């Protein structure tokens, strides 16, 4: 693990007119680290994620990324071409709804291969072999390679979306509620898979979730957000076992026990 952070977030705020999206968020993300952002709906988690992943421009503050050449770059000052290139090579973005992140009308193989073709891979056989390999890694049977994602179940779609994002070996993956809308057994399988992949590939990830169980399983560190502010952050086990803020205590005690 290198000794410099992958992502440096300094005092990021986003305002929607007079309304607050998120306010004065600062943190650093280290290589190989998984950070969970938790909080109730409307607390600014997704706004923050969008600001970090350049899908939204922050109103103020700086997000810097450690490029592969060792330089830190201010994402807001990058050209659009470079930013989009970064997003489809060094980054991944897993949407809550797989239909937003997949091309529903082209086959699973082409979905996985799209990023390869976007960076200039022009050998059909190699693209297909890589796609088949990635389908296997996300536990989709290889004979489904020519099926369209709309023939897939929700869990398979989500796994396909993950494969599509990881095929260019990104270093940073953003996930917005990756297990939302899946039933518990499928969730468990997906979480297991993501945990395995993150560990094997040494990925850094920022995961937005309202599900504390997801945060507990996947993340090393977590941030709790309320009304656009980060009210508590620390190691996941520390925050969940020994919450300091009253709101965090409320969140933790609201988990249903069966």
């Amino acid at each position: 693990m290198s000794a410099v952070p992958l992502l440096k977030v300094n005092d990021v705020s986003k305002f929607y007119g007079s309304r607050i999206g998120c306010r004065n968020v600062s943190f650093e993300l280290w290589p190989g680290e998984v950070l969970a952002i938790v909080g109730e709906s409307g607390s600014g988690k997704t706004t923050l994620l969008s600001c970090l992943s350049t899908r939204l421009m922050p109103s103020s503050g700086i997000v810097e990324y450690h490029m592969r050449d060792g330089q830190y770059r201010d994402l807001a000052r990058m050209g659009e071409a470079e930013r989009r290139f970064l997003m489809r090579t060094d980054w991944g973005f897993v949407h809550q709804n797989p239909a937003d992140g997949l091309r529903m009308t082209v086959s699973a193989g082409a979905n996985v291969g799209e990023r390869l073709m976007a960076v200039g891979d022009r050998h059909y056989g190699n693209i297909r072999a890589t796609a088949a390999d990635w389908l296997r890694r996300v536990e989709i049977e290889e004979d489904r390679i020519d099926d369209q994602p709309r023939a897939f179940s929700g869990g398979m779609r989500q796994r396909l979306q993950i494969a599509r994002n990881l095929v260019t070996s990104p270093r940073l993956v953003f996930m917005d509620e990756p297990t939302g809308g899946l039933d518990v057994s499928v969730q468990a399988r997906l979480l297991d898979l993501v945990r395995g992949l993150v560990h094997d590939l040494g990925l850094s990830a920022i995961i937005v979730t309202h599900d504390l169980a997801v945060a507990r399983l996947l993340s090393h560190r977590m941030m709790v957000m309320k009304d656009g502010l980060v009210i508590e952050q620390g190691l996941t086990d520390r925050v969940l076992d020994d919450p300091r803020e009253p709101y965090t205590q409320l969140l933790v005690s609201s988990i249903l026990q069966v």
Partner: protein
Amino acid sequence: MTDLATYNFAYLDEQTKRMIRRAILKAISIPGYQVPFASREMPMPYGWGTGGVQVTAAILGPKDVLKVIDQGADDTTNAVSIRAFFQKVANVAVTTKTREATIIQTRHRIPEEALTAGQTLVYQVPIPEPLRFLEPRETETRKMHALEEYGLMHVKLYEDIARNGHIATTYAYPVKVEGRYVMDPSPTPKFDNPKMHMSEALQLFGAGREKRIYAVPPYTDVVSLDFEDHPFEIQHFDKPCALCGAEQVYLDEVVLDDKGGRMFVCSDTDHCEDRREHGHAGHLLAQQEAAE
């Protein structure tokens, strides 16, 4: 009097022609780039070549010789009516001979005979955007062209191979122009794609409904997209033309009777007639002559 006669020549008013010519000039300076233009209502329905007609009207001069083809043929409805239209509104000379024409308006084909310097080929284009069926948002496709993000085009070809075992796109086959813009060569069969490469003639594309003009200037690189292990190929035909015996040309299938009889003949009627005049005969023509 002669000055007055050329005023508002060829249907469109002078301001409109000026606007279209400006779009054409811009299109020629950026090969393959789709230039938006204020397409006018034309006295024919969309889909009949309103884009091509406007481009032709904007570049047509009194001394030009016009040829109009539809699917390679000079005698089909679309070709006949557009030719009649320009005869009426511009009183220009018309021809069916590829060699004699200075402007050729086409719907689907590039003539078999190689075009020469000074000739202009005007295409009628239904859907100018090659990325359209993969990315429905115009804002997004424009951005993709601007940033040269053409990976998606190969996704389409990948899908073809995954489904059919080979690249099954036979028409509107995407090309890269001068190493930069990916362009839809309109619904011409991919058989004609190699003819666009380094062509001596100027090629102009007009899409009336979609309000876009684009161009391939003479001597421009036009490369059909493909994969290393699935290279670009044109269609091949087993038999020569049944009437003129030509090989290495694009053929149309014609049903002869209701007992399964059919023949394959040149899609380019002028080319076929020319060959027959020069004494070439395909097997059907030879049979007919023998019967007589």
